[in-house]
Each structure stands twice: as C-alpha cells, then as structure tokens.
C-alpha cells in the first residue's frame, strides 16, 4: 500500500484523489472488513463501517493531512469506528468460526484433516480464555502489523502489546502442546 501524494492543484485533483482512495479501498477492504467483524460489528453494518474508514481517508487526504503509515492508519480508524458502533449494540456479537467450511477445504489426506481440526479446536479453546485485547493483538500480528503499529491501532504502548502477545502466545503454545 503506497501512499499517494497529489501535487497538482488543477480541477482534477478531487477526481484523482477519489481514484487513488478507490484503489486503496479495493486492495485493503477485505482485511479491514475482517478486522471490523472481528471487533464484533454486526455483519449487516460491516461494509458500511469499512467504507466509512475510506471516506475518512479521503476527507483527511483532501485536507492535506500527511499519512505516514497507511496500513496502521486504516486499522486504527477501523478500530475506533468499530468500537463506537459496537458500543451502540445491545449485545456483543462474538465470532463463530465456520468449521464446516474449514473441514471441506482440500487437504492431503483425511488423517491430516482430522489432525488439523483437532489442532484448530485446541487453538479455539485457548482463544476463549483470552481477553479481547489479546485477541486483537494476535489478529493484527497475523495481518502483518509490527508491535508499534498494533500499539498505534489499539492506543496502547508497544510494551503492552508485547505483554498481551506474551500471555496469548504462551497460552496458545500450551494448547498446541497439550
């Protein structure tokens, strides 16, 4: 994801900015939307919240704001918007993994499939004991964010992210071993 800086001041500036944001939206919307859903936003609102993230991006870029780390910025805005939406919801929507789909995916052998499923169930059980912050850290880490970026998204310090991950990964290691 490369940040695009528009330098011309002609009448086409807005159109080019729209085009750039649309490109970023196409490349990154799936990741942002899955994070939005992971934070408990109902499926019906997920697309709208995701689009809102890119509208904010467009507005900020129009104002000339410099965005140094696009990926962390998008996740941060998605994080904040999702929490706002979720606070209006009466019940927290938890994510139930699609085991059927997982089982149906192509694997080398039936034995492999059973072992994989068992392993994933252990991970799932371990995840149930983690706090939402720990799960968010794991999610963002798997999305390729660095600790500093995760800290920026979640509004905590890097060492807190490290500590959340320590606890979470230690528990996952126990589960994977067990």
């Amino acid at each position, binding site marked *: 994801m490369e940040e695009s800086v528009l330098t011309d001041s002609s009448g086409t500036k807005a159109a080019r900015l729209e085009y750039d944001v649309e490109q970023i939206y196409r490349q990154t919307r799936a990741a942002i939307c899955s994070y939005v859903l*992971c934070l408990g936003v109902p499926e019906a609102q997920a697309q709208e919240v995701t689009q809102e993230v890119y509208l904010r991006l467009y507005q900020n870029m129009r104002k000339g704001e410099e965005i140094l780390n696009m990926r962390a910025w998008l996740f941060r805005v998605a994080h904040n918007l999702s929490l706002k939406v979720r606070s209006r919801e009466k019940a927290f929507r938890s994510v139930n993994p699609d085991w059927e789909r997982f089982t149906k995916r192509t694997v080398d052998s039936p034995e492999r499939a059973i072992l*994989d499923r068992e392993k994933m169930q252990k991970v799932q059980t371990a995840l149930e004991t983690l706090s939402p912050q720990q799960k968010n850290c794991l999610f963002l880490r798997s999305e390729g964010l660095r600790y500093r970026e995760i800290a920026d998204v979640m509004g905590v310090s890097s*060492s*807190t992210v490290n500590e959340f991950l320590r606890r979470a990964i230690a528990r996952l290691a*126990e589960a994977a071993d067990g």
Partner: protein
Amino acid sequence: MGSWSSNLPHIPDFDLIQFADSEMPVKAVTATEIHLRTCNKCLARLDQLKNGAAAYDQYHAHLLKPTLEIPQEWSSLEARFESLERPRNKIFFPMRIWWAAAALACCVMVIGWFLYRDAPSRRMQQVLVRAVVRTPPHRRLQVTANGHSWYRAATLQGEAARHSVADQRSLEDTRALFVKANYSWDDPLSARSFAAWRKQLPEKRDQVLSIQDSSGNNRFYRLETEAPTGVLRIAALTLRADTLNPVKGSFHFEHQRDVSIDDAGEMPSLPAAVDTKNRQRVERPAVVKEVGPEEELRVFAALNAIGADVGEPVTVDIDPAKQQIIVAGLGLSANRERQIRQALAPVPNTALHFKSGQPMGVENQSANAGGNYATDNAAPLRHRLETQAGGAQRFQLITDKALDASSTILAQANALYVLSQKFPPLVAFAFDPPEQETLRSLRHRHAIAIEQATVELEDALRPLLNSTTAGMDETQSQQATSWEVGAGQLYEDAKLLDTSLGRILAGSYSQEVGQSIWNKLPDEIQKLEALARSQENAP
C-alpha cells in the same frame, strides 16, 4: 519488562516472543543468539512459543479469515464520494416522493410482519411433528414441585395409577394443576402432550431455541409456549436435538407455581412378582437422590459459560432438603433471565427463582463512600495528577479505565472467593477427575481474568504512577498456603484496592490521606497481581 539482560539464567517469554517476531532491539539480538546456542531450555521454549504462534497463524488464515468474509458484493465508493460532495441535494425531493416512500415503507413493514410473525410457531410446529412420531423409550421421570421431588413412570395409564399415592399432598396438588390446565398428567414429558396442550390455546407466543450444554457436546431444542391466560402460563419442553427425546419440562402455572419434570433415566425393573402390565401405572413416592457439590459445580460451569457467575446478582445454593440447586437472580433483565434459563436447561435438578427489584451487587465497600473527606483539601494532589495525565479530560479517561479494571478485578475475585467457599479442598477431593478439572478450569479462568485486568489497570495508571510502576517485577510470585486461602486474601485485597482507587480517583480524601493512599497504591496493585498469578499457577 524490557530487553533481556544476560545476567538472567534464562530468557523470559516476553523477550523470546520479541525475538521470534524480529521485534527485539538490535543491541539485544546478539546476546540472545549467543545464549540460545548454549541453552537447550531456552531453545526448546522458543520452539514451543513459535509453535503456539504458528498454530494461531494457521487458525487465522484457514478458519478465522474465511469466516470473516462478508457475503455481500462490495459496492464502489463512488456514490459515497458523491454524497460527501453534495450532501444536501437529496433533501429537495418533491413532497409526493416522500409520501410515496413512506407508504412503501409501511407496506413493506406490514408484509414483513405478516411473513415473520408466525415464524417461531411454524418452526415449533415442525419440531413437534418430528418429535411426536418418535416413540419415547421406557423411561422414568423426576417431578419437582413445592420443594418436593419424586419419581414416576414416564407414562401412566388407568385410574389405579391416579390413586396409588393419593396421600402425597404435593403430588395430588401437582396432578390437579395439570388436569386443570388440560395438560396430560399421564404423559407430561412428551412432545405429544405438549402439542395437544398448545393446540387448544386461543392465544399463544412461541419460541424455539437451539442450545448447547456446557460441554458443548450435546445440542437441545427448547420449545417454549407462553399463554397470556389460563392455568398454565408457560410450558417449556427441552428435547435432545439428535433423538428429539424430551429431557426436561418446565411448567409455570398461575400464582407463581412452578413444576419441573426431568428425564431420570431408564425405568428400573420391578420384582418379578409384580404384574408387568401394571408396571407403568405405579407412581412411586420417592427415594430421591440428593443433590450435592457436584451438581452445584455443574451449575457454576453452565453460568460461567455465559458469564453469569461474575458480577451479576445471581446466587447458587442447594435447597435445605438437598433436592435441587436453587439459582436465584434479582433484578435481571428479561433477556438475561432467558439466557440463564437456556444455559441451565440441560442441567437437571435446578430451580430458577427470578425476582424483579434492585440488585444487591457484589459486596463493595465502596469507592466513593468517603463522604467524610473534604475534597477541597485534595486539590493539590488532584491538580498534580491532572497535570501528570496531561489535562483534566485525559485524567477523566484514565479514571474511567482504572475504575472499570478495578470493578472487573473485584467481580472476578468475588467469583473466585465464592468457589473457594463452596468447594474447599475437602469437598473437591471427593470429586471425580472431570469435576476436579471443571473446578480447576473455573478457578483458572477467574485468576487469568484478574491478572489481565490488573495489567489493564497498570496500563491505565502508568502515566500517573510512572516512576513507581516502572520497576514492577513481573516475575515476583506470592506464596499462598492453598488456593482457597489465597482466594480469600485476593478478594480482601481486591476490595481494598477498589476502595483506594475509588477514593483517590474520585477525589474523596484529604491531602494527607490522599497522599498516603497514593503511595500505597503501586504495592497494592503489585500484591494483587502476584496473588492472581499464584492462583493461576495453583494446581
């Protein structure tokens, strides 16, 4: 916490994870690599942690992410860009378009209401039709009413049965209730009787819920029909999802009278002398198995699965006759009551008593109870804290976060304390291994939650306690004699911390007292964290 010091015998997990994720400061990487070349223990631990992280990455890629794909087509942002540019244009539609839109919306709502109003009823009908055709096996039932409990055959036939235990007052009362409600007493725990009763209702509201027991291995359907009038107001039948055999019936009659009927297993065989034809007719007054700590623990586990054992006005007790586990809730919302009913539906011998009113809440020597203190005198300390926080608004945010974390700690510590009182080692010792594991798992969950909330509390207070908390030793552990003694101490300390925090952050103190509370706060947090960790590590 920080980079690993080579003075330590082994590398802590914190640093190993940093190392594995290439997040370790460059200056510490070499020392770590050298240590790993010579220390098999650290190398093995690194592999373990890498395995844990890899397992999550696999889960993330193959299970979580595919689940988090939305089914809708993605729409372009174009329309939304336009709406940003011309936000007001849409307002100037002619009035007739507004009226047409409103009329259309009304039509859609009416059609929607007609389509969906009967959806639960239709689903219930489908389940009942399937359940009625199944022949129930030869079972016996446990009936509980008015605090009495007895066994009987699942089906009774003939008058003789109805007079066989006529001296049993509660049995007679219960039978009379069912007869008055026109609900089959001969076969009360069956889909057929439920369907027959439901069919005769002039007005009713149905609900079908799919539920799981606490182990997650068994699924059930709970069919619930509510009648606004009549003797029987709510009847709920729980069926196993696989066989559609009924396992539990709950009946709420007028004047707050509740009857619960549970499937109690196979009918024991009668002596040979007894005429087998009459076998089903005998309604035996009970030699009822008493409920004990095992059953009580099952209730706690079911409540824990929905988070109802922490910070909610719900109590669990064995009734004096030891026939039932009484779960009482005060001032819960209707929705929460329903969730608790669902969670406990698969647990036999439970009676639910919900009352409206103000919840009692967790014992809390509260926080802001320090009315004797003059807040004016507190101003210098408060101003100092506000300055450290970066302004009054920021201080308020810190206060909110810290008090939230403290309430979580207190609620979890209370839940742990309740477990320690209900299931001390002498009681737990008599448990079978699965129950012991359940208890251990419940305790650990509370301990982990306390530890995590303590970390969140530290995080929240870090800007205010900068110099003092920086040196908090993560590895310090608190030795408690046994987990139940530790749980008591933990609860007391959690109350103390909550009180201190409440006073200091709400400004209810004099300058001198405030400073003293403030000075002790880091130690209190540290002690609590160590206690929680020792609970987490307790066997």
